[in-house]
């Protein structure tokens, strides 16, 4: 699994960090998405994938 974020698209809705807090965070300085675990361990993959689906701006990609 490989999760990437496009910070030029992110609108900081926070759905990712809310849904999968171990995988995503929001930067302190600009509020934009930070991917903490681009290749999350097995037990976090389902919530990580859900977080990607819930992203309203389409800033997240999963492969």
């Amino acid at each position: 699994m490989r999760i990437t974020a496009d910070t030029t698209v992110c609108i900081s809705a926070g759905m990712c960090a809310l849904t999968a807090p171990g995988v995503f965070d929001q930067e302190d300085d600009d509020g934009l998405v930070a991917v903490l675990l681009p290749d999350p361990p097995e037990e976090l993959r389902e919530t990580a994938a859900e977080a990607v689906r819930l992203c309203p701006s389409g800033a997240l990609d999963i492969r």
Partner: protein
Amino acid sequence: MSQTTTPESRSFPLPRQCPFAPPPEYGRLRAEEPVSKARLPTGGTAWLVTRYEDVRTVLSSAVFSADGTRPGFPTLLPGQAQVLQRPPFIRMDPPQHSFYRRMLIQEFTLKRIKTMRPGIQATVNRLLDDLLARTPPVDLVEAFALPVSSLVICQLLGVPYDDHEFFQSRSKVGVSGESTAEQFAAALGELRAYMDGLITRKQQEPGDELLSKLVTEHLEPAGELRRDELLMMCLMLLNAGHETTANMISLGTVALLEHPDQLAALRENPELLPDIIEELLRYLSIADLVTTRIAAEDTELSGTRIRAGEGVIALLAAADWDPAAFPEPERLDVHRGNRHHVAFGYGVHQCLGQNLARAELEVVFSTLFRRIPTLRVAVPVDELPYKHGNLAYGIHELPVTW
């Protein structure tokens, strides 16, 4: 069976029957005419979009523009056209929309909101102390729902709460389906003048709240924000911050009292709190009428041709009650595992303050029913004055006893 209507006779907003369910006609439209034309109260027509997937498409696709200055942008209230001449950034498309939104997002991250929780809890505690000292029945809107949301947004923005009667009464005119264009213009003029004065005060004596930050970091000539842009941005934040959350508090309280099984589940297991909030957001979808768009080019949605320049209303409550996305949508069910609702919209315009709203609602509903376990509505719930035709659905007054 609900009655079939034609575009000529279907006037929008459609009527509700049950105060806690979307208009029943949404269900028929979703099944038979998922993209259907309706006549707007301000004249003209717009396409009503009722399916969950279509609503998400409209709100996330650049084909459907949020630019309120485009000719023919759909309006529901007589005074809206005036605001749209110089709209706040929520009625703009990227890249302009992103430019303004990015000035604000640091203040609304999950971590920032978390730091506000003790303050929100203290506010809720104090308001409930005051409420319990009164003799019931008490209006929960006036004594609790509105002060909670107003105090929180005032603190965040740096607006003096002592002015709340002024801005609440003017904002009320701005969102009411019963206001005339003249009343709307007068209220907007007063709000602009008020905010202009406040900006001047922040220029002279900046503090550390959001309004001061915007003034010192972004206002011309040092920054990139014109004074009238800052003014509309602040009015939008003030209005969105107190009006919508207050409606969710009052409606959510009644919805939980009307579903004692859900309230009991919450009491037994407080960890369900975030789930019940998401489910209340879906079930009530109070911003149903807010997400209006205009087609930027010819397109097609669920087999219906939409032409450039035609108005589109992505009905949030219709999407959030679509059985294809939420089986048995009429059931308020904390165990639904629902995170994909569109109560805060979708796409790049999704609600900026959504995590502040979640925090307020969590503090409110964890505290209200613990402090007042015998809370009940003092009149039959069918007789409550609901905000039919308002941009944000809610209750005008909610007499409660305990």
